[in-house]
């Protein structure tokens, strides 16, 4: 059988000139960890011509499927960093979810994605493909001469902070060496060694439970749906999940409870009978990957310590229910990189980075809340909690009112940065979904989609009114995008951005989030909103 992508070294160790330098070489940015979040951060830096070195303690993509569900917003972020198509073309799209209790189906939902968006609500894709495609994008940028480099088998063994830099000691197959960086982005996962080296806390709630995950290759006739079981006959008292991935790989999660022998449970002779009980004796399948995981819901108190910034699982960890891990990690780097760029270019004060904490801690808390609630429903912690849970499931079969209470995971939606100190003027009667702090909603244009025209720079979106082609505010360029709703194929953009208003001006950040909006163009107002959005003007606190 041919080798799986996760068995092939994708960025094998190569000796770097830094290892032979007489003193530690200073880099602009070092990203620790070549997982989905580290790679996305590095790609965006390189696209902005900021030199970046990614170091990883091995040389391959993720082993096994791990993060499998990707929501619309992260797909839009991948589009913005130039590689969304590959993910969506390969990924499996799904909309229907079924919930089973005991031996029967009690409930079925349809995500019913709204029309007029380029990207689907969700795709399933193995994490190893996700990382492979990001590595492809890195190679594409390298071919264009962009300053990005991945150093495989470079493990961080020590980190020290100076006044305005950090020094990083790396262990390689040929010994250790030290490099320095103006900034370090730590995307080294939930067990983050960097976090430990800095002695930073990572507190939260431990869930006393174990889950067996198996990737199974089979030609099965199950539809492309998310199936979730509460207390099924094949896993009494526990839960189970079945999800389809590309290449006829099916992802199965089986809850095992707390008091188990992990090594025993992982053995193929114990896994196979469990899977046969679930899938049926006559289904032929092959095991690709088996793992057992436990989880916690926790976050760091602050995501930045001096010159080290944490993103993804290293900063916050959630239970897997709701697909809020990798999805929220991508939104971290989405939020971070443009801010870091402005600070590095001295176009914004250091305090702009505090808004990374402000906005992404808000999002992390939302994710932790949602995933903790799902976990409490799926794995009740008391007898009464189980009684209510089972009552909800029984009622859901007959009574519509109980269905919204069924919680097998509240699927990841992007955070709206309500109340962010970067938010500027709003027009209250305009649509709520496009208020300041919200990510821009997609909509079809005459050709293509709105989001294809947005991102990676500050922009003014002018709908049915005139604006200058571009504007300079304190050395930062704002480019304009003018749209006349009379020329659009449908009413989506009008409904999402105008409502009853006849015209609008939106100020958009490089991460496609809305900073401010107005009914018409006024240069002074736009300048003020721009200074607020870049942290150059602190707003009066209003009660």
């Amino acid at each position, binding site marked *: 059988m041919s080798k799986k992508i996760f068995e092939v070294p994708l960025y094998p160790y190569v000796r770097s000139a830094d290892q032979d330098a007489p003193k530690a070489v200073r880099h602009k940015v070092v990203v620790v960890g070549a997982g989905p979040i580290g790679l996305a951060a590095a790609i965006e830096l390189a696209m902005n011509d900021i030199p970046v070195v990614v170091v990883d303690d091995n040389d391959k993509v993720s082993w096994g499927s791990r993060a499998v569900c990707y929501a619309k917003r992260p797909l839009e972020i991948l589009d913005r960093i130039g590689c969304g198509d590959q993910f969506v073309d390969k990924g499996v799209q799904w909309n229907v979810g079924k919930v089973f209790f005991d031996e029967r189906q009690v409930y079925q939902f349809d995500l019913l994605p709204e029309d007029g968006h380029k990207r689907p609500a969700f795709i399933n894709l193995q994490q190893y493909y996700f990382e492979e495609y990001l590595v492809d994008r890195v190679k594409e940028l390298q071919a264009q001469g962009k300053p990005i480099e991945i150093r495989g088998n470079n493990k961080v063994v020590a980190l020290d902070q100076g006044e305005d830099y950090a020094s990083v000691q790396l262990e390689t197959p040929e010994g250790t060496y030290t490099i320095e960086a103006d900034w370090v982005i730590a995307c080294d996962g939930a067990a983050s060694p960097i976090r430990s080296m800095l002695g930073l806390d990572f507190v939260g709630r431990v869930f006393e439970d174990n889950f067996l995950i198996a990737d199974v290759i089979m030609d099965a006739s199950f539809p492309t749906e998310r199936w979730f079981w509460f207390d099924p006959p094949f896993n009494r008292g526990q839960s189970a999940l079945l999800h389809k991935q590309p290449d006829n790989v099916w992802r199965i999660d089986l809850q095992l409870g707390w008091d188990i022998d992990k090594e025993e449970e992982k053995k193929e002779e114990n896994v196979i009978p469990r899977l046969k009980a679930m899938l049926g004796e006559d289904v032929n399948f092959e095991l690709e990957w088996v793992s057992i995981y436990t989880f916690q819901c926790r976050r760091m108190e602050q995501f930045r310590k001096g010159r080290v910034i944490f993103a993804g699982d290293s900063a916050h960890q959630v239970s897997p229910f709701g697909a809020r891990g990798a999805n929220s990690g991508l939104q971290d780097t989405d939020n971070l990189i443009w801010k870091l760029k402005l600070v590095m270019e001295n176009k914004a004060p250091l305090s702009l980075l505090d808004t990374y904490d402000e906005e992404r801690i808000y999002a992390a808390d939302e994710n932790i809340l949602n995933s903790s609630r799902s976990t409490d429903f799926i794995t009740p912690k008391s007898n009464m909690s189980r*009684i*209510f849970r089972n*009552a*909800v499931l029984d*009622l859901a079969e007959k*009574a519509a009112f109980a269905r919204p209470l069924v919680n097998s995971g509240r699927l990841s939606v992007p955070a709206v940065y309500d109340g962010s100190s970067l938010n500027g003027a709003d027009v209250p009667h305009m649509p709520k979904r496009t208020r300041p702090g919200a990510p821009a909603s997609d909509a079809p244009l005459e050709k293509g989609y709105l989001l294809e025209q947005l991102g990676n720079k500050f922009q003014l979106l002018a709908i049915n009114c005139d604006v200058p082609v571009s504007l300079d505010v304190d050395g930062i360029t704002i480019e304009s995008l003018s749209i006349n709703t009379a020329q659009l194929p449908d009413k989506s953009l009008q409904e999402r951005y105008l409502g009853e208003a006849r015209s609008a001006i939106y100020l958009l950040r490089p991460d496609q989030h809305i900073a401010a909006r107005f009914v018409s163009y006024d240069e002074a107002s736009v300048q003020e909103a721009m200074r607020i959005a870049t942290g150059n003007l602190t707003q009066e606190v209003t009660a």
Partner: protein
Amino acid sequence: MSQLVEQPNLNDPDGFYQELIDSHTGLSDAQSTSMNARLVLILANHIGDRAVLAEALALAKETMPTTERS
């Protein structure tokens, strides 16, 4: 915002009480608990208002005896 009704509001208090008790006849304690859970959920949905439900939860809790009666 509406408030929890704490004044008498049942049009046939004795009849309702009998029906409530009768509905548990023949049930084990576990079955009764399960039935009560369903009833709470059904009634909560009928009320709908989160603030009223919060008041109801608080009232239920505050009237609990400090030591369990046997």
